[in-house]
């Protein structure tokens, strides 16, 4: 019994001696590490809070319709669809936080997004080709990941923005990512500014639910632009024939 008591005291003393170092080490670790938003994330039916955007008068009905037509074209031909669509594509996102970048991987026809944490400036527009996802740089402000994206293409992919408006080459997007409810939810607020589209900054929020870590992304959903049945389904109906002109009297 005396041996057991001495052994127990030794164990406790050893652990006690390591606690200050462990706690100091942990504090230092938390100071230099950031939250990890890695995981599989999904939107639910009640995940979106999107107010209507306030558009400049120059955004006419005709311009909105033209962008909608472009969106339909991008879907029909399985083009890369880009931001903002990739963040609400109907399938979960796989987000992986690496040392130099955070990658956001959709399950369908969009290129993954790279949020670069290893640089603080956008690639110069003298060399960056505008793209459907733009160029994203990210940094942590406490527990919030702030992502700044510019360099969007004004016509490629799905350009319509939730709440109204559309992205152009002048569009600028700031996103703020925060984990909520002990990591069960990922809140992302999207703030779009574009003097050619929005009268004031347009902000909306999505809250993604964390899926089980054993989730398997689905990668076999086809997008074949040469599938005749699919083309028939998506192509617009043919325009009605014009009525014959009146004969001259």
């Amino acid at each position, binding site marked *: 019994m005396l041996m*057991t008591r001495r052994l*127990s*005291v030794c*164990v*406790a003393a050893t*652990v*006690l001696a*390591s*606690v200050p170092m*462990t706690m100091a080490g*942990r504090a230092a*670790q*938390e100071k*230099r*590490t*950031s*939250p*990890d*938003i*890695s995981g599989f994330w999904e939107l639910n039916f009640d995940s979106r809070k999107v107010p209507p955007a306030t558009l400049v008068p120059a955004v006419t009905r005709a311009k909105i319709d033209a962008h909608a037509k472009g969106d339909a*074209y991008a879907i*029909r*031909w*399985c*083009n*890369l669809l880009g931001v903002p669509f990739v963040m609400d594509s109907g399938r979960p996102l*796989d987000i*992986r*936080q*690496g*040392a*130099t*970048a*955070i*990658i956001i*991987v*959709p399950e*369908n*026809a969009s*290129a*993954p997004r*790279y949020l670069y944490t290893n*640089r603080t*400036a956008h*690639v110069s527009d003298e*060399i960056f080709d505008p793209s459907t*996802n733009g160029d994203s740089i990210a940094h942590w402000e406490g527990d919030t990941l702030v992502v700044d994206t510019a360099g969007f293409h004004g016509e*490629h992919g799905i350009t319509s923005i939730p709440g109204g408006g559309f992205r152009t080459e002048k569009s600028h997007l700031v996103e703020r990512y925060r984990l909520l409810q002990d*990591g069960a939810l990922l809140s992302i607020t999207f703030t779009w500014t574009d003097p050619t589209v929005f009268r004031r900054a347009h902000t909306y929020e999505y809250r993604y639910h964390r899926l089980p*870590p*054993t989730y*398997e992304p689905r*990668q*076999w*959903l*086809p*997008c*074949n*632009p*040469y599938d005749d049945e699919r083309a028939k389904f998506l192509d617009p109906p043919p325009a009605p024939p014009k009525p014959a002109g009146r004969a001259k009297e």
Partner: protein
Amino acid sequence: MRRTVLALVAFLLALAAPAPFRAQSPGPSSTRLEGDWVRIDPDGVGSFDGLSGVVPPAQLLPGVAASGRGGRGRGAGGRGAPLESTGPKPEGVPYIVVAQPCSGGVGGRSNGALLVNPDSGGVHIIEQKDEVIFAGERGGVRHIYLDGRAHPSPWTPTPAGHSVGHYEGTTLIVETTGFTAGAVPGGGVRMPETRLTERFELSREGTRLTITYTWEDAKVYQKPHVYSYYFDRAPTVQSGGTPVSYALEEWCDAGDPIEKQSIVPPKQIIK
């Protein structure tokens, strides 16, 4: 007394435990696979057919039909299916024509097949403790799970299969199965039961990546079919005086008729 000590030890150990959902500190960049890579031509063969030609021929079992040498048949990803081209073309008729641009086989460019047999497009690796993402600029992503999960059963075969991996030092070992039937470089063949082992090995300087592919299938191969591809870190470009490297987004519009023709010879002026 014993219970009190055990409870104290448990409490102190809990204090020392890492908080959930906190990121790991990054290691030195030279020891990490993470980053941007481009496939190189170390033997100077100068063409893709030449690169395919340096892959040793697969030793198939009798009765197993070899695939084309290049292993880039339907479903292997890429720009699309070429038309047969015989003889010179008349003036003004394109002489390199792609029948289905941007198609990349079943699932379009997003099915990850191209990352099983990478071509000249840049590739990008993001490492996280539970999963490595291997992505390509020419389309598609492979998920390589490090979280100890098994290959699912049942599993619907896909062009990229299902991959699990682990590290041995700085080398990433990836095991993949569950492929759709198709071709393998070197005239090989793969079936859903075929197993692919890839070794992603960094050079000591961290500037050269070697991926060694080992295909095994007792119903297909006489012996494991092995070959290697080589990659260098992607070159940087100067942006505002700073060297940067980033993933390009390769745009391809299947609906654009111009995409269906690569080169139209200009009118020849004969003097």
